C-alpha cells in the first residue's frame, strides 16, 4: 500500500504544490489537506508547507495555528505521527507549541533567497533517517522571518538532547541563534526546518537533489513502523 503524506493548504500557502511534488518523487502519495477540514483523510504523515498563511498577519503562523485542521494535527503529532513544518510550517509548529522557540525577523531586515549549505546534525528523526549525521547538503532558503530564537536554557536543552536537526554552514543567513536551521521535538517525529528541501528534489529546478532525503526518510520510518 502506498504511503499517504498529507500537505496542508492554508489560505496563503505557496509551496504546497512543491511539497506535493517532493512527496510524489520520494515515492509516496501526496494528499491535499484543507485548513478548514479537521479530517486528515487517513494520511500517515503531514507536511506543513511554506508560504504566508493568512498573510502572516498578526505574527507568522499565529492564525494558522487555530485552523480546524491543526487541532487534529496537534493531537496526532502528540501520538507520534510524523509532521514536517517547512519555513512557514516551522513557524506554525512553534506557534502550536509542538516545537520550542520562535522565528523572528531576519537580522538583515530583508527577505533572503539563496542556495544554503546545511549540516545535518541529527539523522535519527522521522524526517532525516536517509542522511548521515554530519552530512552537508545544499538546499534553497527563502524567508523574511527565519531567525530562530529561544531562551538560553532551551537552546542548551536542544543541544544536550541532540534535537538540533540542521545548522547553517558558511553563512548564517538570518541571524538564527547557534546557526540553527531546524529542530525536532523530543520524540523525533515533529521536525521544523527553515530552508526548503522541497525545492531541491530535481536537478533541473533545484541547486541539488539533496532535499529529497527528508521525504524518503519518512517513508522508511513508516514502512519500518
Amino acid at each position, binding site marked *: 500500500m502506498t504511503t499517504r503524506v498529507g500537505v496542508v493548504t492554508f489560505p496563503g500557502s505557496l*509551496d504546497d504544490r512543491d511539497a506535493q511534488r517532493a512527496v510524489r518523487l520520494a515515492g509516496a502519495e501526496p494528499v491535499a489537506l484543507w485548513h478548514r477540514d479537521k479530517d486528515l483523510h487517513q494520511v500517515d504523515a503531514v507536511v506543513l508547507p511554506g508560504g504566508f498563511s493568512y498573510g502572516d498577519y498578526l505574527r507568522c503562523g499565529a492564525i494558522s495555528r487555530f485552523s480546524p485542521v491543526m487541532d487534529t494535527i496537534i493531537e496526532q503529532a502528540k501520538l507520534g505521527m510524523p509532521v514536517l513544518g517547512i519555513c512557514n510550517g516551522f513557524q506554525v509548529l512553534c506557534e502550536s507549541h509542538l516545537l520550542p522557540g520562535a522565528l523572528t525577523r531576519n537580522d538583515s531586515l530583508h527577505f533572503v*533567497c539563496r542556495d544554503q549549505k546545511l549540516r545535518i546534525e541529527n539523522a535519527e528523526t522521522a524526517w532525516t533517517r536517509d542522511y548521515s549525521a554530519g552530512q552537508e547538503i545544499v538546499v534553497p532558503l527563502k524567508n523574511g522571518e527565519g531567525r530562530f530564537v529561544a531562551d538560553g536554557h532551551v537552546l542548551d536543552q536542544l543541544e544536550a538532547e541532540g534535537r538540533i536537526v540542521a545548522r547553517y554552514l558558511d553563512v548564517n543567513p538570518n541571524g538564527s541563534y547557534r546557526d540553527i536551521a531546524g529542530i525536532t521535538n523530543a520524540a523525533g517525529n515533529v521536525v521544523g526546518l527553515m530552508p526548503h528541501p522541497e*525545492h531541491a528534489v530535481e536537478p533541473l529546478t533545484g541547486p541539488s537533489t539533496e532535499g529529497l532525503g527528508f521525504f524518503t526518510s519518512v517513508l522508511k520510518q513508516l514502512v519500518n513502523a
Partner: protein
Amino acid sequence: MTLDTVKNAEQTPEAEQPWSELGLKADEYAKIREILGRRPTGAELAMYSVMWSEHCSYKSSKVHLKQFGEKKPDSDAMLVGIGENAGVVDVGQGYAVTFKVESHNHPSYIEPYQGAATGIGGIVRDILAMGARPVAVMDPLRFGAADHPDTRRVLPGIVAGIGGYGNCLGLPNIGGEVVFDSCYQGNPLVNALCVGVMKHEDIHLAQASGTGNKVILYGARTGGDGIGGVSVLASETFDATGPAKRPAVQVGDPFQEKLLIESTLEIFAEKLVLGIQDLGGAGLSCATSELASAGSGGMRIELDTVPLRDNTLSPEEILMSESQERMCAIVEPGKVARFLEICEKWDVIATVIGEVTEGERLEIFWHGELVVDVPPRSVAHDGPTYNRPYARPSWQDALQADAPTAERLLRPSTGEELKAALLAVAGSPNQASKSWITDQYDRYVIGNTVLATPEDSGMIRIDEETNLGVSVATDGNGRFTKLDPYTGAQLALAEAYRNVAAGGAKPLAVSDCLNFGSPEDPDVMWQFAEATRGLADACLVLGTPVTGGNVSLYNQTGDTAIHPTPVVAVLGVIDDVTRRTPIGFAEEGQLVYLLGDTADELGGSAWSQVAHNHLGGLPPKVDLERERLLGDILIAASRDGMIDAAHDLSDGGLAQALVESCLKGGNGARLIVPTGLDPFVFLFSESAGRAIVSIPRSEELRFNDMCGARGLPATRIGVVDGDSLEIQGQFTVSLAELTDAHTGVIEALLA
C-alpha cells in the same frame, strides 16, 4: 451633499463643473456634452476624465501604436492580440501563454514600497483576467545615480515592495533589469512583467453579453485609496467641508490577491464566467465601461451595493477608486450560486452589483437614482486622439557628432590599463552583480524555474511530463535610444531576442513598455515616433508580433525628460527545458567561441559611461537578419547538444560577458585576441548580433560546419581553464579579483 443625478444635470445645464481640475481640455468637455446631449453628471464627468486620461486612452500615443498592428508579421502563434488585458500566444501541446509588461513609475517615486507592490498586483490581475494561471514575474527597474542620496530612499523601498508583494503571491521572480543613470533621478522606472499559462480553451475575454447575466464584483472592499484627481470633484463640487485629498497611491494586500488568484482559477476550472476584467487604473469606471463596450447590450449597475471600506465615499469616488485586489465577472444567473460558494471557500467577498441589459447604455444607479447614463463605448474606446507635433531635436546632430573615437576619448592600451578597465566596468553599479536585489525575491516557488537571473533569460517549465517551457527576457537601453531612437528601440528588441535564443528558446512574441517624457514636448514626441517606428519595423523582420504592453509618458522633471526608454520583453518557447543553455562556463577544457562580427562601436557603451561619463556618437548598428541567424544557430546548437554555455554580448561587451560566464561557472578562461582586432575593441565594443558559447571539443567540428554552412562568423577565441581570466599577451586577472570587483557593490552603496 446633493446627489448629481441625470435628472439634475438635465435641469441645471449651466452648473459649473471642475473639468479642468480633472485634467480635461475645454474641447474634450464640450465633446462629452455633445455625446450626452446635456452636461455630464458628476459621476459621468469623473468617468470620462479618468478614461480619457493619457494613461487610459493612449490619446497621444495611439496614432503611433497603430503601426504594431499595421506592420504585424504573419505569425501562427498569435491567439489574442492588442486590445485585451494581455496578448495570448500559442506555444504548442494545447498550451497558450499570456504575458505583458507594464509601468508603475509615478506611484513608485511617491511611495516606493506600495507603488512597486501594486505594480506587481496590477499586472498579475491582467494575466489572471485572460484565464491564465500566473507562473512568473520579472521587474525591469531604472533608478537615478547609484550614489545619489535619493536612490537610497527609492531603491530599497521599491525592491522591498516587489519582494513583499510578489513573494507573498507565490510567483517566482525570474529576471528583469536594474539600471542606474542620473536621467532617472526624479523619475525611476518601475516596470513589471507577468507570464501566465493556460490551455487554449480556457482563454477568457473582457466582454459582457447576454441580457440578464449578472455582474459580480469580487475581491477586496472598495476604499478611498488611489482616487487621485477625482478628489477635486468630490471636495470642490459637492462637499467643500469634506476631506480635502484622498491618497493617490494605492495600498496593496498580497494575501487578498493570492486568494483572488486561487478563487478565480477555481471559478475558471468550473467554467462559471462569460467575461472577466480586473480592476486597475480607473477602477470600476474602466471595468464596467470596457466590459459593456466590448460585449453586446448594455449594463445596469447598482452602485450602492458595492462593499465599501469607508461608507462616506461618494458615488464618484466609488467609480474612480483604484483600490487593489478586485475583479469583475459576468456570470449566467444559474451559475451565480456556485460562483459565490467558491468565493466563500477562499474568504473572498463577492457581490452581484448589476446585470447585462437589453439596451445600449451603461446605467449606474445610486440608491435608485440614475447618476450615470452613457454609451459605454464613448467612455472606453472613443476617447480623444491627438496628433501631437514632433520634430527632430535641434541638439540631436551635435550629440551624434560627439563620437567616442580614440582621438576624443582616451582608451586603455597596455595590458594593465585594459585589466583596470575590465575591473572598473565589472564593478560599476550597472554591470555589478545585482544579487543583493534579486536575492530579496523568491525565484524557487512553484518548483518550475529552470533559469533565473543572472542568466540571460528567465525560463519556466510549463509541463512536467513533456518538459515544454517558455522563457522571457526584458531589455532596454536608454543611452542607445537617446543617441538614435529608431535604432535604440531595435537594439532593445534585438537584445531581448538574443537573450531568449541564448537560453535555447525560440522567440515568438513581444510585449513593450514605452517609457518617455512629456508628449507635449516635440523633441520627446519625435523620440516616441522614431522608437515605435523602429520597433514595429524590427518586429516585422524578426517575425515577433507585439501582443500588448503599455505607454508611460510624462516621465520628466521640469523640462528635462528621461532618456527615451522602450523596454522590450520577448517571449520564447522551448520544447524540452532540459536542453536549456546556461551562461556559466561549467566545464574545463571546453572551447570558447565568439559568434558574430566585432566593429569599433563604443557609442553609448558601458565603457564610455564608466571611464569617461560620456554619451555621444551613434549606437551600434543593427542587422536584424544577422540577429535571426545568430538566434537560429544558438537554438539549434542547444537542441542538438553542441554547446554547454552561451551568453549574449551587450552592455560591457565581451569583457563583461566573460566575467559573468567565468564567475557563474566557477572556472577561468584563457583567450587570444583574434588577429586584426584591437584588444580594446575586442574586449569593450558593444557591436550587436554577438554571443559567446562554450563547446565540448567533440562538438567543435559539427558546430563549425553548421556556422560555416549558414554563414555565421564563428571565431575560436580560447578555452575554459583554471581559476583566472587571461587575455594572452595582455593581462591575467584571478576569479577572486573578479569576484571582489563584481560583488558587494550595490550593498555598499545602498544597504
